[in-house]
């Protein structure tokens, strides 16, 4: 037993991971290839951010108009709910791999695959957010002579901001988390450190995990701060 413990490969340490992040080192597998270091970290972080922003933008463009329209009309509740629930049941790994097999590898294709993960929370939240808006506020707006589009833009959307934003946050987190496994579909993100242990070593894996966690938390906290700034003052005074 003790022998087995002693012979197990050395696992990562925080110190080793930090060293990996800041100083380039020679990979012990690929024969002299330099890995790690702040330059590679920045490059992969930017790749992951680019992929996340593209996929998020695509899913917002697809899902939000549908959700806002259905919420405004008050129809399609079943549709919004089913899409939202089915979305959670999609195994990310299979989705990414399957989309890559179907339409090929690369940033554009991966953007499509990741956008699929952003659509369910965006659709459900835009529907629920708009649908929940106090009907008397909508009736008052209509009585003031606003057109349907004005009602949506000036009354429903501002009142639904917290819910709409919660949808954007969920979608962002789902997309950035899954962009971690993008290297299996040919796009190098921070997940490459995690997935290709044979190249980066265990310290690289831990470094990747730390960086991915930091990236997701940074995005989440920035969006939460942005949400507070965008929520109208009146809504903040009377939290429902």
């Amino acid at each position, binding site marked *: 037993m003790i022998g087995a413990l002693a012979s197990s490969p050395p696992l990562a*340490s925080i110190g080793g991971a930090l060293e990996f992040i800041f100083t380039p080192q020679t990979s012990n597998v690929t024969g002299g290839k330099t890995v790690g270091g702040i330059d590679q970290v920045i490059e992969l972080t930017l790749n992951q951010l680019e992929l996340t922003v593209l996929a998020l933008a695509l899913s917002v463009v697809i899902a939000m108009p549908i959700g806002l329209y259905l919420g405004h009309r008050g129809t399609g509740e079943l549709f919004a709910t089913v899409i939202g629930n089915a979305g959670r049941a999609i195994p990310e*790994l*299979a989705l990414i791999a399957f989309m890559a097999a179907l339409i090929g590898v690369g940033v554009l294709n991966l953007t499509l695959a990741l956008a699929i993960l952003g659509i369910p929370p965006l659709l459900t939240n835009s529907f629920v957010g708009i649908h929940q808006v106090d009907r008397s506020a909508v009736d008052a707006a209509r009585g003031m002579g606003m057109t349907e589009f004005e009602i949506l833009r000036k009354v429903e959307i501002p009142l639904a901001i917290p819910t709409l934003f919660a949808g954007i946050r969920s979608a962002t987190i789902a997309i950035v988390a899954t962009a971690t496994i993008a290297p*299996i579909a040919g796009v190098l993100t921070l997940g490459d450190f995690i*997935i290709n242990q*044979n190249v980066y070593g265990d310290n690289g894996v831990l470094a990747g995990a730390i960086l991915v966690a930091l990236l997701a938390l940074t995005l989440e906290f920035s969006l939460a701060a942005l949400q507070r700034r965008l929520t109208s003052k009146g809504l903040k005074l009377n939290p429902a």
Partner: protein
Amino acid sequence: MANPALIAAVGEVGKGFIHERTSETLPCQATDKLFCWGWASEHINRYETPTLQHLELVAISVLIGFVIAFALALLAHRHHWLQPPLLAGTGVLYTIPSVAFFFLLLPLTGRGEDTAIIALSAYTLQIIFRNTMIGFANVPRAVVDAARGMGQTDRQVLWRVELPLALPEIFAGLQVATVSTVAIATLAAFAGGGGLGEPILKGGISFKTNLILAGGITFLIAVSFGLILFALQRLLTPWRRVTQT
């Protein structure tokens, strides 16, 4: 027989992910076909062990997550000042991407099933905790006051009044947590935790039949769990069926 260019593509794209590429799987693996029925019917038993592992991972993780989150919710229900820090804490655990979480545990628990279970349980905490709190908050004050007026102790109010009335929200949380965990547990394969992600990683991204089978089984498990929990909630809260609009 098999297209050599495609085999080359398999090797290029899926590098590092094809550990076993035996000659029997190659013809199907290297075809353009979306789904080889022949291969699927012959090799369906390959998915038995990963499926059982997957179910085990999900069951244990959700159970642990539920026990912890529920205990935290009871605690926060009694001591309200605990709510914000617990929400923030579980929120951080929820935000950390699962793939990263598995490997943050690398220096502590290494690779394997235990690591996967810890990360997956941590992921469920936020959903179950938040929903349980919402459930308690939604219990009408008047009902609680009535129970007090009937002479019930705090403990009786909690277990006989508040908890049953909060069941729909608690179940909704359990349902979301379970369904998400089924999907996310495919990532446990990266950390050596087994499950249905393993055949996906082993087969590589060009092997569509394998991807459809493993992904499809996962999706079906998630949907079935979702429906079972929904049915269970309806069974446990018969009064809801009457008042539901």
